């Protein structure tokens, strides 16, 4: 292959020295991107070696076709010639190529425009990252504070947002989330019951599957599952909505009108989730218990009434309240994570994608951390 290419190349270029200080490059055949054309290195070596060389000319009488790949070859040669202070005579080139070559060198490269690709030293990179973490934490805290102020304004009845927006968000994060919440909670209930049933059956204590599923769902799993579903579903959608508004200058338009984006955009989204998440949580609990019931009845041959009575006995109202409180906290977390990332979004399509990803990641991490904190707090307080 190499040798064949070499052969082809030699066919297309030949060099002549009509005088001691003149080099004539004869180019023949077809020079398009589909043909294999030689690259400039084959010529530049020769140009550099001849110390008496002053002028470079072209002879293209045998050239049958050319396109941009021919031009890149010429541009490289011309750059090399100006480095070596050789004069390049373009008279022998095709008329079109001559003009395009002139056009390409018409506007000189802007100084400082080329991006610096210098590698940053390790410590500088680490330090830069640490500073960025600090800055982004400060930004998140700022956002949290502004959200709190907006909420206080809402409680005083002075918040500035559209009721129709709130209604839309209530619908989107409420009834429209039913199908996925049903499916996931039902399956989680089923799985919990299966895992429990295998263990409990060895003691002949199958009936306690009802306790296990009931308490686990109501106290934490219902809330966590709802939280994670909503982070992936609604949190991501909030981040994408606000991110796109950022790209379209819509948020700028609100700010310059003196409308606070915090009240107008973030507040209704937060309210919708805080109201809807506990309701979804109750629904998820019921679906989870139903999942456990299915396993209890069809796999363990328990009587449905007995199963439900056992569940009722195992649950206390405290469990329910803890679950609902946890889920309301998740509502705030999901809404804030989504809106924060949306507002921070840069002004490009890929930035919207990053904002969405980051909203889901932030949401899920915060949910897990919050669950741990609430569980530990309940443990310490003895609830």
């Amino acid at each position, binding site marked *: 292959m190499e040798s064949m290419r070499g052969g082809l190349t030699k066919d297309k270029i030949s060099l002549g020295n009509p005088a001691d200080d003149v080099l004539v490059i004869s180019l023949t055949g077809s020079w398009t991107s589909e043909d294999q054309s030689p690259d400039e290195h084959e010529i530049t070596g020769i140009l550099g070696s001849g110390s008496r060389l002053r002028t470079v000319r072209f002879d293209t009488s045998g050239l049958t076709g050319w396109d941009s790949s021919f031009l890149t070859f010429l541009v490289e040669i011309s750059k090399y010639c100006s480095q070596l202070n050789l004069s390049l005579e373009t008279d022998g080139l095709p008329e079109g190529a001559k003009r395009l070559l002139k056009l390409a060198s018409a506007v000189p490269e802007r100084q400082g425009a080329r991006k610096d690709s210098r590698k940053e030293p390790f410590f500088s990179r680490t330090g830069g990252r640490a500073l960025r973490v600090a800055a982004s934490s400060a930004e998140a805290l700022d956002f949290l504070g502004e959200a709190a102020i907006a909420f206080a304004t809402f409680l005083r009845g002075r918040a*500035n947002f559209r009721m129709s*927006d709130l209604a839309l968000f209530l619908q989107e994060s409420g009834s429209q989330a039913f199908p996925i919440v049903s499916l996931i909670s039902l399956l989680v209930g089923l799985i919990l019951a299966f895992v429990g049933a295998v263990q409990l059956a060895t003691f002949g204590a199958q009936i306690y599957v009802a306790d296990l599923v009931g308490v686990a769902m109501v106290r934490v799993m219902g809330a966590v599952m709802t939280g994670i579903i909503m982070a992936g579903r609604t949190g991501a959608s909030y981040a994408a909505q606000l991110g*796109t*508004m950022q790209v*379209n*200058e*819509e948020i*700028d*338009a*609100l*700010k*310059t*009108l*003196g*409308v606070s984006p915090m009240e107008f955009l973030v507040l209704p989204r937060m309210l919708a989730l805080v109201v809807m998440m506990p309701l979804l949580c109750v629904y998820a609990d019921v679906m989870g218990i139903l999942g456990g019931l299915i396993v209890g009845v069809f796999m363990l041959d328990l009587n449905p009434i007995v199963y439900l009575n056992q569940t009722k006995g195992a649950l206390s109202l405290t469990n329910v309240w803890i679950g609902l409180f946890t889920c309301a906290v998740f509502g705030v977390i999901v809404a804030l994570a989504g809106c924060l990332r949306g507002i921070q979004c840069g002004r490009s399509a890929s930035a919207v994608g990053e904002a969405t990803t980051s909203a889901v990641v932030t949401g899920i991490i915060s949910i897990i951390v919050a669950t741990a904190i609430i569980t530990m707090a309940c443990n310490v307080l003895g609830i």
Partner: protein
Amino acid sequence: MTGSEAQITVSDLDMGYGDFILMRDLNFTVGKGDIFIIMGGSGCGKSTLMKILIGLKEPSRGQVVYGDVNFWEADPQEREQIMKRFGILYQSGALWSSMTLAENVALPLEQYTSLNRRQIGKIVSLKLALVGLAGFEKFYPSEISGGMKKRAGLARAMALDPEILFFDEPSAGLDPVSARLLDDLILELKESLGTTFVVVTHELASIFAIGNNSVYLDVDTRTMTASGDPRKLLAESSDPKVRNFLTRGEESAHAQVL
């Protein structure tokens, strides 16, 4: 330029991002009723300058004075008071995509006036009719063309009868006839309402048709190299770059041929 009182005075303004200074030492005055053009090649910071004027971005140094209030040193309430007198047309229209055109135009009115719903509805229809969009009240921004979005954005910017209208590239993306109609509309508003305009553009036809005051930002020297009536600049300026810009580079093309 027009000899009238100053509406915006910019002095010793530097603008930049972080350590990077984009433009320095900007000094100019926009008079009441002027159509003030911010012009210059791509990437010279025209839009950044407008962001500073409308309160979206803080300058690195220097002052922007509206009337006799120092805009960036005023407290937030006072700044908001000044911003209420602005109308802004963004490059892409920046209509709120979740609202209809009527709701878009109505929002500023609901915010800052005590008009009732019916009166607001009437004003909205009037503003939309002024920009040639009568009957499009119930359309969403995604359902209309780019030029229509721009005109709807103008209707929203005019909703509160602002004292100063800022335009970011008004004719970008418009066909020549629509661009001409927009220019006529600007002149009409200036005559009938006495509105001051600050227009970021590099459309030569518009610059000469409407502008009576201007500033030219030069990329290479990173400062302003000319200001004043663009037609006078064309006739009198000796700066080759300004002449080159105002003649679409034809003078330098001639020079090259000769």
